[in-house]
């Protein structure tokens, strides 16, 4: 744990520290018990109130929180028997995307997702979860494998974006992402993507063309980072807070825009303050959606998936 505390988390964390101190001081079953209970209730209330009124900028800070659970954390909580599979069979293995086979409620699934690092060393290894073409080509290989064996596909999205480097461009970053999009649109198996943290641009969408699109409560999904947007449209990266509001990137915004099918509730205070509760909610949602998708024929699923993305956008007709 980085122990990083965001500005709006501070009053809650301070209150919690005070409660812990009181508990340590007084020991179990003392006359302070009432006071502790009162403070605990107050802390929960404070948290509920504050988290009901988060600004888009605060949501973004939560989505990028260094203690936020990552792909492998959810795989560990929600799935069993995970076996990681590596390599794109062409150039290399990209640790910024992890993938493999596992079980969800005892049934085999193919799972993949961007993986960020917990510390500098891990982040160097995983390139901060920013994939190169090899990552997207590994994803393609696993998607095809899912189709070949009729295994449902689960994609966990958590990236600031695809990596913009010289090698990535040389090896066809654009083509790798594009091919993912086309491939996913035509998969015969049921597919669900979940934005668990940051959904950043084409590098996120590359594993997001699925039958269902879910978002964790404090996740964000956007065409460009607010900072990138601010530097282009406002010519000032410092305008990123305004850009974060304008871009409409929160889970609830995306429900309103017809992109996100369901917001998965996180533990009070955010997923980083309650992984088991968040993972349990995710597990419930996945079980429900895969159940619905399994009831459809392959043809039906393909038609519905096409229609789902076909509808996306806002076009007006001139009278």
């Amino acid at each position, binding site marked *: 744990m980085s122990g990083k505390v965001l500005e709006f988390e501070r009053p809650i964390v301070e209150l919690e520290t005070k409660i812990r101190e009181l508990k340590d001081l007084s020991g179990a079953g003392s006359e302070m018990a009432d006071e502790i209970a009162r403070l605990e209730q107050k802390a929960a209330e404070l948290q509920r109130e504050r988290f009901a009124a988060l600004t888009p900028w605060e949501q973004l800070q939560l989505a990028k929180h260094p203690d936020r659970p990552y792909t492998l954390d959810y795989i560990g909580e929600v799935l069993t028997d995970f076996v990681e599979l590596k390599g794109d069979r062409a150039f290399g293995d990209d640790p910024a995307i992890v993938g493999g086979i596992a079980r969800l409620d005892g049934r085999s699934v193919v799972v993949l997702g961007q993986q960020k690092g917990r510390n500098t060393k891990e982040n160097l290894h995983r390139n901060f979860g920013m994939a190169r073409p090899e990552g997207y080509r590994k994803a393609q290989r696993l998607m095809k494998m899912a189709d070949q064996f009729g295994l449902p596909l689960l994609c966990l999205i958590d990236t600031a974006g695809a990596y913009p480097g010289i090698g990535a461009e040389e090896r066809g970053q654009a083509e790798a992402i594009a091919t993912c999009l086309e491939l996913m649109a035509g998969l015969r198996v049921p597919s669900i993507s979940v934005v668990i943290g940051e959904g950043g641009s*084409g590098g996120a*969408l590359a594993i997001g063309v699925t039958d269902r699109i879910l978002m964790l409560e404090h996740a964000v999904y956007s*065409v460009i980072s607010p900072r990138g947007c601010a530097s282009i449209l406002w*010519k000032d990266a410092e305008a990123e807070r305004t850009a974060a509001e*304008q871009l409409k990137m929160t889970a609830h915004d995306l429900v309103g825009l017809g*992109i996100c099918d369901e917001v998965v509730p996180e533990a009070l205070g955010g997923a980083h303050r309650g992984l088991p509760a968040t993972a349990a909610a995710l597990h419930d949602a996945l079980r429900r959606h895969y159940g619905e998708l399994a009831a459809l024929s392959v043809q039906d699923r393909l038609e519905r998936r096409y229609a789902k993305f076909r509808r996306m956008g806002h*076009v007006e007709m001139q009278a």
Partner: protein
Amino acid sequence: MIRPGKGAEIRMAWWRRKKQALEQTSESNKVSVPRGLWTKCDACGEITYTAEFVQNLRVCPVCGHHHVMPTKERIAAMLDRDSWQPLDLELRSGDPLGFRDQAAYSDRVAKADRSVGPTDAFTAGFGTIDGLDVSAGFFVFEYMGGSMGSVVGEKVTRVFERALERKIPAVIFSASGGARMQEGILSLMQMAKTSAARGRLRAAGIPYVSVCLHPTTGGVAASFAMLGDVILAEPRALVGFAGPRVVQQTIGQELPPGFQRAEFLLEHGMLDRIVGRLELREQLGLMLRLLAGAPAKAAAALPPAPAG
């Protein structure tokens, strides 16, 4: 043909003498070139009669530099004469996010509608190339940098769907900075929508040729532009996922010369061919006929070359 008057001839002689100086201060001098009479090459500084320059599809007769070409001229040059039937003219951008940066998005759209025309950044329709029916689409780079919002995504999708319906090849000429930020996530999703439509065409065995013009980057490159059965580019066209400025900021070092240019992509196996603008129409006709298994057309039956 526009003939220059005496004053213009004198000025031209002066320009030729000052060619060196011109290159150094091209920005300030550009304004001085009489508009509609002369055009100066952005690359070598050569001055050409604008009429001849346009006739030559805005390719410099001296150094071969391909200049930006207005979409109207592009359509005339790439399709058989009078074959273009534009469609989807009723589609307009809304403002789904109520987006406002330094100007309101709706004002930006209205301004572009006035200055460029109400095509948004893409014009779609039917035409023929070498007598072969195609479902075609052209990015309008003049319109908000060819950025792809919902209207562009819808029109691109329709190009593929109409190709599928009529069983004719699709051809798209891309020139775009990528997704239109002012439509947020809805712009991003156009990448998925268009790629899904492209996939249906592939499954039906109908050819799609993607032509990458300068520049083709971001969400357009990372979707249908890189999904052609055949992918072509004009010489020196910038094609890539991330813009060069972003790459440079990320890696913090100078970019290699020619980075992300068509020649670089060809070398790295990302393109089939680089085709000069003056040969492009003929090459497209040949390739489409080969892909579709159509017989070669007798040279005599070829329609006359368009006049710019």
